[in-house]
């Protein structure tokens, strides 16, 4: 069974929600990424999303683009990203808790490597699925086909402006979970969450059995509290990468600690009766 499916089955059984933090592979270097992920898992992460640095990421906000640029400025190659992911998969707490790792990758990197080769290498390095945020559903057939052969998940996105007919099609094509964009716009730490999201999630719930995870702009424990009754999980990217930014001037251990306590505040808000699988 794919680790993402197993994780959501387990969470559902225990009535818990998924906390899915994001880190960029190789920012500021691969060893630091390892420490950040270890800390996130120690502090309540249920799945980990790992970004593949890309030079022109139109689907990501300025915070993540800057993070990608920092990683690439040290000459990081795609093979280094796969190596970094292999090391993450071997972390003791990732293994002990069977934490699924999910890639976040721009399509041109997948295309350049070759779709089948990319999926194969991604899986071999320890990824259980991937989000390709600039690949809309009508372009995703071949990737989904290759992924299905290997039980590798391709997580697709639905936004507040997606018409219902189209949202249904996206939900059918998606696997692992459905990524629901919380605000129209790019990733970034927003002050409040919009209310129309509640309606969209309720409607999606009737269309699909996939777990519904909300991302884009989640940065505060209050957001997690708001979402826990309507979503199956939350994805937190920019708010964590903002902390990673500080690794330029602070010791990595200190940043890992800061990331850990931030993660704990969100994880606890999401699942208030503390019963963290990672302790």
């Amino acid at each position, binding site marked *: 069974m794919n680790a993402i499916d197993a994780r959501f089955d387990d969470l559902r059984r225990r009535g818990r929600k998924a906390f899915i933090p994001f880190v960029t592979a190789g920012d500021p270097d691969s060893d630091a990424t390892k420490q950040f992920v270890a800390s996130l898992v120690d502090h309540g992460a249920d799945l980990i999303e790992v970004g593949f640095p*890309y*030079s*022109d*990421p*139109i*689907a990501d*906000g*300025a915070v993540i*683009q*800057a993070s990608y*640029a920092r990683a*690439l400025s040290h000459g990081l*190659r*795609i093979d280094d990203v796969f190596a970094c992911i292999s090391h993450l998969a071997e972390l003791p707490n990732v293994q002990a808790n069977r934490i699924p790792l999910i890639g976040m990758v*721009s*399509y*041109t*990197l997948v*295309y*350049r*490597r070759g779709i089948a080769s990319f999926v194969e290498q991604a899986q071999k390095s320890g990824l259980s699925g991937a989000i390709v*945020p*600039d*690949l*809309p*559903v*009508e*372009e995703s057939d071949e990737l989904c086909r290759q992924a299905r052969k290997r039980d590798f998940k391709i997580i*697709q*996105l*639905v*936004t507040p*402006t*997606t*018409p219902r007919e*189209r949202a249904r099609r*996206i939900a059918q094509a998606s696997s692992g979970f459905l990524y629901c*964009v919380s*605000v*129209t*716009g*790019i990733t970034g730490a927003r002050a409040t969450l919009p209310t129309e999201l509640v309606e969209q999630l309720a409607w999606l719930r009737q269309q699909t059995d996939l777990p519904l995870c909300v991302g884009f702009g989640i940065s505060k424990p209050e957001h997690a509290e708001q979402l826990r009754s309507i979503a199956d999980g939350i994805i937190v990217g920019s708010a964590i990468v903002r902390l990673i930014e500080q690794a330029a001037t602070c010791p990595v251990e200190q940043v890992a600690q800061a990331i850990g306590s931030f993660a704990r505040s969100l994880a606890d808000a999401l699942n208030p009766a503390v019963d963290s699988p990672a302790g």
Partner: protein
Amino acid sequence: MAVSDSLMQVPTDEGRFGPFGGRYVPETLMYALNQLESEYRKACSDPTFQEEWNRYLESYVGRPTPLYFAARLTREAGGARIFLKREDLNHTGAHKINNCIGQALLAKRMNKPRVIAETGAGQHGVATATAAALFGLECQVYMGQEDVRRQRLNVFKMKALGSEVIAVQSGSQTLRDAINEALRDWMASVQNTHYIIGSVVGPHPFPMIVRDFQSVIGRETKKQCLEQIGRLPDVVVACVGGGSNSAGMFYPFISDEAVELVGIEAGGRGLNRGDHAATLNYGQPGVLHGAFSFVLQDEDGQTAPVHSVSAGLDYPGVGPEHAFWKESGRVRYGHVSDADALEAFRLCSRLEGILPALETSHAIVEAMRLAAQRPPTDAVVVCFSGRGDKDCFEVARLQGEDIADNHSD
């Protein structure tokens, strides 16, 4: 004829030019792109829209632009006759305004009170700011910090026209980062904002819309050739960065198989990666800014740095329809170096009394080469995409002369 006709019937409903084009954008943009496509198709079949657009082209932009026989350049080349399609005589000094007027009218039609644009050297930014002023639209232009510094005159013009210029600090702080930022803005503002993209790049329907609005260049050229030489030209040459002036010039000639079409990219200072911007010559297929086309990239698919003496050609991607024309063999794509383009800038200025933009200068080099190999009965048309005033500082700097801002005016 059948082959060329099929080259005309693009893009498909999915925005494909053969395998190229399409939409590789976040789901957040799909709604806006669908809305834009549907509004554009309605506008195409609406005579009122077409009349209004033609009226502005005539009375505001100054169309039709002349097709001018360049006698002294012809003599210098020593072969076929060279004609210049004078897009430099348009209001704002380049072909960019054709597209901006059309897209601003679309914005009005969609009841969007705000427009945004990206700009490299500032030509498209100035043209967009001009159209925004004309139609009373709020306008913000994204421009790389590095370009803001280098192109202060155009920054001033945009502000004078009532637009706001937003300096982009991310990445290489040039055109490609400005496009990234404009796309991000649009994702958060689609409800009230139209993105006036400046070239035949980006996700469908942009490459089609920009090509169509620029095709007025090729249509006029055909008509003027028939009037002046009684037949179509033998060769048509245009420079290719993103590829908007060339797409507009070539498209109406695509099914005229006897007309040789030549696109010229920036050969820069050499053919190592990072020293040129010859995307169709040296790039590989990939996705950049929402479309599948050729991209200058490394072995991983990361976009490569680019260089050209001409800011308008300094782009690591190219319009998907050009990729299609290249693969089909209908258009030949060559490249011209910085040094040769600078020489053509001097030659054209001295022999014809016309300062060409450095982008245009690339096309002039190739036109003179081709003219030299052909008999005087042949006709070579150059798309004279813009005037060179904007490049005077750069050319002076490269000649070791100081006409910097503190001495000007």
